[in-house]
């Protein structure tokens, strides 16, 4: 697991404390009952705090899975 995924996993653990460790990498809004639009906002803010960045709210609708957020961090914020 690379550094971004490791730190992003921490964010998911905080926002979804009941999510099994093994399910974090595959977490999706469409399949995770606790992940609603309000949780997305909380998750985005926790990610912002963890990485010290400001996520653009224009992309909020696209940040709907662990994989999508990780990809967004790498491409839009040049994190590695």
């Amino acid at each position, binding site marked *: 697991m690379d550094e971004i995924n490791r730190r992003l996993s921490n*964010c998911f653990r*905080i926002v979804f*404390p009941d999510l099994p460790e093994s399910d974090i990498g595959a977490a999706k809004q469409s399949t995770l009952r606790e992940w609603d639009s309000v949780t997305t906002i909380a998750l985005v803010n926790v990610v912002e*705090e*963890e990485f010290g960045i400001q996520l653009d709210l224009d992309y909020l609708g696209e940040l709907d899975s662990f994989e999508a957020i990780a990809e967004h961090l790498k491409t839009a914020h040049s994190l590695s």
Partner: protein
Amino acid sequence: MKLTDAIKIMNQGPADGIPFPVTLACGFSPLHVQTFLAAQLQKTLPERKIRVQTGLYGNLAGTIEGMIPPESQAAAIVLEWPDLDPRLGYRQTGGWGPSDLADILVHSERMLQRLEAAIQRIPSSIKVALCLPTLALPPVFFTPGWQASEAEMRLCRGLLVFAANIASLPNAAIVSRQQLDEVSDPATRFDLKSELFIGIPYTLSHSYQVAAALGRLIQPFAPKKGLITDLDDTLWKGIVGEIGPDRVAWDLDSHNQIHGLYQQILRALAEQGVLVAIASKNDPGVVAKALERQDILISSDKMFPVEVHWNAKSGSVERILSAWNIGADSVVFVDDSPMELAEVKATHPGMECLLFPKSDYATAAKFLRQLRDLFGKSKVTAEDAIRLDSIRQSAALQQMVEEGGSPPEAFLAEMKARITLDFQGAGADPRVLELVNKTNQFNLNGRRYTESDWSRNLDDPNNFVVSVAYDDKFGPLGKIAVLRGKRIDRVLHIAAWVMSCRAFARRIEFQCLRVLFEHFDAEAISFDFIPTPKNGPVQEFFAGLSDEKPVTAVRLDRKTFDSRRPALHHTVTTNLEPIAI
């Protein structure tokens, strides 16, 4: 506090704790305020299960009117300008022209009246914490931004009248705008994109500050009870032993006003019931002359005890605490000497020790306000005004006990003591709950209650709350004891029993039980006793009736009590006829 920390605190709350439900009424998306408020309350109430429920988006009045369940401990209300009229926000485009202003004002005024009526209907057992608008008004007025228009002033006047009316409610408190401005920069509070995209107008940091302020109103810190002050270069400028009582100063003309302001706030604190004492390394005779000066702003009779000698200040503090009969963690010590502060702190680590800022004016302004914060309370009661006199009486009585083992029987008989037990109004008396929540020593079990917890089930006719007031020929002590219990057949079950340490050594505790036995014709009283590190006096009381210190609940039958209690010399008044069972 970061959002991450807040969520962690929330997640760590006890799943099986007693619920502490709070309703957050907020016209915008409450997400972050909700999270931070829950975390703030969880920190102050770690054993409770905090639950912050929210209401209707965009309908603040509707939430207050219909969505605050009676079991709520508190209602946190966050008011913003669009709650008064949507045209005062950014999410609707109803008009910002001069022709709209009159209607905006009328609509806002009506909404404030509706909100006020809704808040007044909230049951008194639910604490209300209100935050007035914290964001800048949008550019709705035709004047340039640096000019306050008549319409804006009229809007603000309506808001302040509303706020003053809410502040007068016994269960309501309002966030201080002034203090919020200090911790949350007004220029960085608003996030327009967040408001338009997700309905959250507050930045994260502002959400936290608003939530923290509301949380402090819902669950306030316990105010400190006493202040011990140094004299030289603290209460006054100068070393009195060197320059003499006439030349120490605290006035504006000599540029020593900072000491005058300190005296002024000490006097104000004394008037609101804070105990003030002196600990000074000095010549007692010289100090006495300085304290007799006519221009001193706090008279010497407002300060007790006065410890003036050349011995260590930690010893002075020890004796003052003993006379006051309160713990070091309830007291603030003020001195201009870091060394003296360190010496006292080493002996009393729980005490708040503050350096008097004798030449640092920026710090001095903060220091004066810090004193207000440390001793601040929502209401000043009649008992606050007589606290110092009763402490003096208790100290004299205590000295008699120490010298002779106990007050002579004849002395007690001649005190003309009167005890008044109020069975009717005590449940709703805020002084009663205050006494229950701040008394440590004579406290049956150390249990603390929120206003909502306390008022629950009081309408059950078998439950009772009794407040006890005392006075004697030396003056009144005011309300000094509270009992709360339930009658089941001929047994009384006491859940809470506290008595102020000011009332010790007067046999009031025995008289209280005698009256309960008689009033309810009870054959026994069971006490929900739990030993705590501080409730030694209760343990001693029960040990005196049963020859051993209790470790758990206590049951006392009437025959045992009558045979072992001492003679009682009080005149007793109650406001209920005896109940026949």
